[in-house]
């Protein structure tokens, strides 16, 4: 068995909005492994995004702990978490979050400039099949192309983990498949541990393991003995 990347124990998260307490996570225990492709499934408000944000160092758990290799994320301050995101984590979001004033290549270069051991930006774009569109601004790219730029940006630093929150959520299924293919290729070729959030059950087939979230807990885990290539996934 490969080494453990993330170790989460009894993770809870409570948000206080005014007088209301929202229990977003009610005790999550999970380990994620090197090179693993994990899919987190569940309805809106089930806690999967909150959990991913805690894994990504965007948020702290209220109680319990998350360990990334030998870093105890729960103990890191603002600066430590920034460092952690910078050095170890690649993010892909539903709405791409590209910088509109930078071209595709420059969006990737934005990250490689501050990374420790990045690949060349052009190389990262080639991995997602966008070398031809390198000098285009986001506004000149389709949604799927923008998301692939975002993936190239996320993997260019050669992150230890790739965290994707609804990466196909804003895309039609044909385009979505191309994006999943890019994520799958990165996972297979670079061996990057990848966690994908989706509420699209069709996508679960591409994962090693699938975690079902409901009401702030993992209520079920499925291990896929054989992974289906993204090209065969439909929704």
């Amino acid at each position, binding site marked *: 068995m490969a080494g453990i990347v993330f170790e989460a124990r009894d993770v809870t998260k409570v948000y206080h909005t005014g007088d209301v307490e929202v229990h977003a996570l009610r005790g999550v225990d999970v380990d994620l492994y090197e090179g693993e492709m994990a899919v987190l499934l569940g309805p809106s408000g089930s806690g999967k*995004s909150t959990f991913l*944000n805690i894994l*990504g160092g*965007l*948020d702290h758990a209220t109680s319990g702990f998350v360990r990334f290799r030998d870093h105890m994320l729960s103990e890191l301050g*603002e*600066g430590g978490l*920034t*460092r*952690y*995101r*910078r*050095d170890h*984590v690649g*993010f892909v*979001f*539903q*709405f791409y*979050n*590209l*910088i*509109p*004033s*930078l*071209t595709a290549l*420059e969006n990737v*270069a*934005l*990250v490689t*400039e*501050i990374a420790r051991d990045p690949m060349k930006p052009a190389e990262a774009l080639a991995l997602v099949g966008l070398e031809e569109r390198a000098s285009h*601004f*986001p*506004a000149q790219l389709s949604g799927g192309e923008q998301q692939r730029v975002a993936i190239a*940006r996320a993997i260019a630093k050669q992150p230890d983990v790739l965290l994707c*929150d609804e990466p196909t959520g*804003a895309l039609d299924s044909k385009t979505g498949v191309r994006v999943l293919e890019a994520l799958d290729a990165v996972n297979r070729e670079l061996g990057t541990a990848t966690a994908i959030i989706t509420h699209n059950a069709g996508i679960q087939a591409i994962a090693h393991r699938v975690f079902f979230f409901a009401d702030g807990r993992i209520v079920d885990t499925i291990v896929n003995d054989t992974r289906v290539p993204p090209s065969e996934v439909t929704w």
Partner: protein
Amino acid sequence: MILRRPLDRKLFRDLLHIWAQALAIAMVMASGVATLILAVGAQGSLEEIRSTYYERFRFADVFATVTRAPGFVREQLLTVDGVSAVETRIAQFALLDIPGMVEPANSIVLSLPDHRETAVNRLYMKTGRTPEPGRADEVTVNEAFALAHGFTLGSPFEAILNGRKRTLTIVGIALSPEYVYALGPGDLVPDDRRFAVLWMSEEALAGLFDLEGAFNSVLIKLLNGVNERDVIGAVDAILARYGSTGAYGREDQISHAFLDGELRQLDALARVIPPIFLAVSAFLINMILSRLIALEREQIGLLKALGYGRLAVATHYFKLILAITAVGILIGFAGGTWLGRGLTRLYADFFHFPFLIFRIDPAVYALAAGVTVLAGLAGGLRSVWSAASMPPAVAMQPPAPPRYRRLWFELTGMGRLVSQLTMMAVRNLFRWPLRAALTILGVAMSAALLVTSLSPLDSLDDMIDITYYRTERQDATITFTDEKGPAALLEAARLPGVMQAESELAVPVRLKNGHLFRRLAIVGKPRELELSRILDADQRSVAVPESGLLISERVAEVLDLKEGDMAEIEILEGRRGTVYAPVRRIIRAYFGLTVYMSEDALADMLDEGPRLSGVHVIYDRAEENALYRAIKALPGAASIALRKVSLQKFRETINENINIMISVYIVLGVVITFGVVYNSARIQLSERGRELASLRVLGFTRREVASVLMIQLVIIVVLAQPLGWVLGYGFSWTTNQAFSSDLYTVPFIVTPVSYARASLIVIAAAFVSAMIVRRRIDTLDLIAVLKTRE
């Protein structure tokens, strides 16, 4: 506040939400309103006070000085067409010996008619009375002088009257419209301690100066609507034979002319300063409103879908502008009134009025409010129109994404040298070039305003340097009641402590070039100057030419004379008549209308032997007290100007007044910088919050993310500086034009120090504003931006 209509409640909450930005804009508007009220209000107040004072105390319209004219000439003058009243009197300069004051003080002694009421230039009696007829030991003094020495009724002091020392007792303290601004001989600013206006009984004064049944000073009040020039011509014809130096109008009367200068400066202030604030606030309104409308695009679509019409939407946003404007106007009213009172208090120190009211015409408030509302509405017009005219279906869709493009400098390969963060900042600036240009202009206005307020210090430094250190290098100047022979120079040189003495002869003339003319004195100087010095326009030392004139730049300008031109000289004393002399050189002199000639050439012109009207001396400081004592006993000494004392007084006055003014301007400049930079940064943050939060998620530190905004602000602030200098140079020039008059020329000088100071203040204010916005970058919500589409 009860806001019944839901749209008004929305407006109220919108305002609460952007309160800091709205307040920053309101402060810029308030500054415009305040400066307008201050300048126009003070101008109006001062003009009203002056005209009321003149009216009530019958201030003369025409003035003349003669050597000696018999009393019946007064009747002759009364027959001149257009003359409503004539006062004839005796006016003499006299030195005073004040208890507890080592140096002699100067005074002008004026006679009051004994057996009738004063017809022109009546006194406002503060306390006491006028001297009894024939009492040569009673005197009424001007209030400022009494206050400066703590004199009350009954206080005695000594005066040297026609060479005889006399003890005078104060029987009255008064104010006169003739001495609202009481400037002593040789002084640059009033020195109430060293200059007194004394009124004595005509009979007594005539006895002291051997002028029984005669007078040497004429005051004339004109009927309304009379041409002053005609009267002056007729008066000159009558008085010529009595040694008149030429009648003149109020514009040449020193006190009046100084008040005019002050009014002109207020007028320039009102023209230059408030428009800057109004323009900047219109731009800020435009910036903040277009962002607000972009943010509320969907809400506008919804309102329209619900059936609200264009007018309702437009009214809604206009109300927002009016609310901000109203706050600005109210703060401006309060600030302007407060500053106006402050300025009035300054006037009280400087100008001697019997009453000083700061009452601003309600029309001024209305004007200030009106132009501010107009500026606000003009600023918001385009945005409001776009909101009102947006079809609901379009409004409810997100706006087209901004189109960025590569910039020309990237094609040169320079683009590779900068980081992606810098590239973001630069491209963003060029994406909205008009907005960037206006922001730069806004910050530049602040620098320009500061340059405008700081540059008078440069001018004053130059005036002090040229006048006191490079031309008038004497310690003291003694003038005589009458012209003296050469022996007076030797006598002066023998006074205790005097090391060097230099003669001077001032001859009143009318200098003419075609139809242009000025009354002034040609000053005769020895060919070899040792104490006073003459500089040309390039500040090189100039020798006195054997013949011909040296004229100051101001004289050259007002008479349109160039080097080599022939000037016509109408001599107003002695043999009188008209002669011509060439202009040899244009020289630098800042005070009065200066014309020099060699003393020999001047004597030739007058057909007289060598004479002098005054002596410059330098003396040994150790013997100062002995010298002062000797001068107090010197027969025929009319006045003494002391360089050290008058320079010190000049500096004091500048420090008191200019420093207050500059502090006010610095506050105003900071208000503009803050208004522009803070709003610009807040709007950037609002537009690019998502982008910046994304950077944070990607692992950029707070400092790095903030740098994207900061780089942009630095570019704006840096580019604004040279533009601000250029604008400041222009504004300074405009206001400088209002400073100069025949009484003094304020050189137009802006030194690098002023540019640097202005920029430093702007940069510091910009830095503080940016730091306030930076705190918001630190609290960006990283998670929220990931779940929302832009």
